């Protein structure tokens, strides 16, 4: 159990006879990690295990060397943003944060200063003295995030933090997550909206039926799914010539001309070899290439390949 990583070793959680998560082994590194999976896949259970709100039926968990069963030590280094939309009745944004910081042991004067910093950070400074009950869904998400950030934790566990946010709010939050990760923190974000995770995360943990089906960087995970050839989209002015040249390569299994007449979708068993050959193909065909991009190196596609349900798993 290293003091500079979040590790789970053979962790299982059963709710009576209902499986929560099963034999999960993970090593999470600093940066933005996405926890993805459909509703009921075990994402929240995993987050609750990481934050000590649930105890594992078996296995060991260490968060930067701290046992999640010790809330005093754990919540000095962990900030948790629950998915539940519940707040003390009558609380204002400011009083809610004050209460949280007081429980973290921050003295009142320092706590007040910190509260206003946090409210500024999440864009709620103007609504500080308004009751949370009157906040919009997006504002409530942001005050929860401020709550998680209050004591400057190194690990942030954010359960569906983008739910209910409008596009502007999402963009702001995503920028904030990236800033937090850029500071060297562990930012673990759960979501069942895959393209969102794809856009923000350095690495993903894919959960399905209580088990981890894949973890790591999307590209690396995709590269390991050898049963599904990798798709590369090439946009150029001579797609037929590119397709013909690509089909001559052993590892290319298909080259499909798209309806727009300016793209070819190449399916290959060896993406690296294809990218290495592509320059020669382009020069040989005399085509002017506009774009070359992986067509299925997304969380969405990878998840579909792994669990056999292409599309957004909601």
């Amino acid at each position, binding site marked *: 159990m290293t003091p500079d990583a979040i590790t789970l070793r053979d962790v299982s959680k059963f*709710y*009576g*006879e*209902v499986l929560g998560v099963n034999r999960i082994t993970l090593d999470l*590194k*600093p*940066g933005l990690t996405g926890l993805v999976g459909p509703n009921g896949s075990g994402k929240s259970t995993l987050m*609750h295990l990481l*934050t000590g*709100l*649930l105890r594992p039926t078996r296995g060991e968990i260490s968060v930067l060397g701290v046992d999640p069963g010790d*809330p*005093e*030590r*754990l*919540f*000095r*280094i*962990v900030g*948790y943003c*629950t998915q*539940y939309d*519940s*707040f*003390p*009745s*009558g609380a204002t944004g400011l009083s809610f944060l004050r*209460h*949280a910081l*007081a*429980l*973290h*042991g*921050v*003295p009142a004067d*320092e706590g007040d200063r*910190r509260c206003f910093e946090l409210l500024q950070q999440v864009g709620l400074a103007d609504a500080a003295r308004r009751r949370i009950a009157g906040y919009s869904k997006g504002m409530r998400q942001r005050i929860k995030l401020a*709550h*998680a950030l209050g*004591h*400057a*934790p*190194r690990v942030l566990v954010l359960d569906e933090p983008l739910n209910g946010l409008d596009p502007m709010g999402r963009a702001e939050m995503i920028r904030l997550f990236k800033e937090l*990760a*850029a*500071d*060297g*923190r562990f930012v673990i974000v759960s979501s069942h909206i895959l393209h969102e995770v794809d856009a923000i995360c*350095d*690495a993903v943990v894919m959960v399905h039926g209580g088990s981890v089906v894949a973890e790591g*960087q999307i590209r690396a995970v995709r590269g390991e799914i050898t049963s599904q050839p990798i798709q590369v989209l090439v946009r150029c002015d001579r797609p037929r010539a590119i397709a013909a040249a690509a089909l001559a390569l052993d590892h290319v299994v298909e080259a499909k001309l798209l309806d727009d007449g300016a793209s070819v979708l190449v399916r290959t068993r060896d993406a690296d070899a294809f990218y290495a050959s592509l320059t020669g193909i382009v020069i040989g065909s005399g085509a002017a290439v506009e774009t070359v991009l992986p067509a299925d190196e997304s969380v969405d596609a990878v998840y579909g390949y792994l669990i056999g349900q292409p599309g957004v798993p909601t």
Partner: protein
Amino acid sequence: MAVYERAWRPYAGRLTPMGRRFLVVTRYALAQAFESRLFTAFYAACFLPSLLALFLIYISHNLALLEQLGLTREFMGGLTLVFFRLLFLWQAIPGFFLMAILAPRLIAPDLANSALPLYLSRPIDRRDYVLGKLAALFLVVSPPTWVMGLALFLLQAVEEGGGWGVTNWRIALAYLVGHLVWILVISLLGLAISAWVRYRPAALGALFALLFVLSAFGSAVNGITRSSIGDVVHLTRAIASVVQHLFGAPTSSGLPVAVNWLTLAAVALLSVFVLNRKLRAHEVVR
């Protein structure tokens, strides 16, 4: 994986000691309690028996006033054990209502709104949470009960002089221990019922119903068996007997006072057990 430079700095300032952290829960629970004007008014009314007793102690030692009123010092038979026992009762009843009203307000909304994950994602555990709520109940109920009781005892002892305080030390003991036990048992029971039913009005009703049902059941068992065995579950009689014993008076239960103590201990332990089962960040599905 992107390479990040570690620029994060944790909060490095002074922290309040961990042992006192539960008092934050208490502070907010107290603020929540006195948000209601109705509750605040009722709380003020809970001091009336003690204020009346204060008045009686005052006039019983004011010979000039007694003369003006045409009374003698013996107008209420002196300030005897009976006077303080009655006062205890008139303090304990409003105290019970205070706990019955307040206990569900402190816990039931947190459970009903799934707020425990939020609470417990701070550096406190379930024990601190319960301790914080319990301390709030203790701080609310103490002033109109044992604090006023002991103050009146001291006043009477000073006014009476002649070693009255020493002679009647059991009154002070009864006020202190009796009220503390009453507060502890009913508070724990109230919190446990609130954690169980999760709905404030239902918790209030359940607390009254439980006391009534246990008392009725105990009395029925006594009647059927023509014994006092039913007092084992007769919670109100158990507490009454314990207090009577503390006052040095005959007890109303037919059972030894040790059994009454055991009844109270069992209720408290059962309440702790229920709290331990029900106060969890996440419900365990079975």
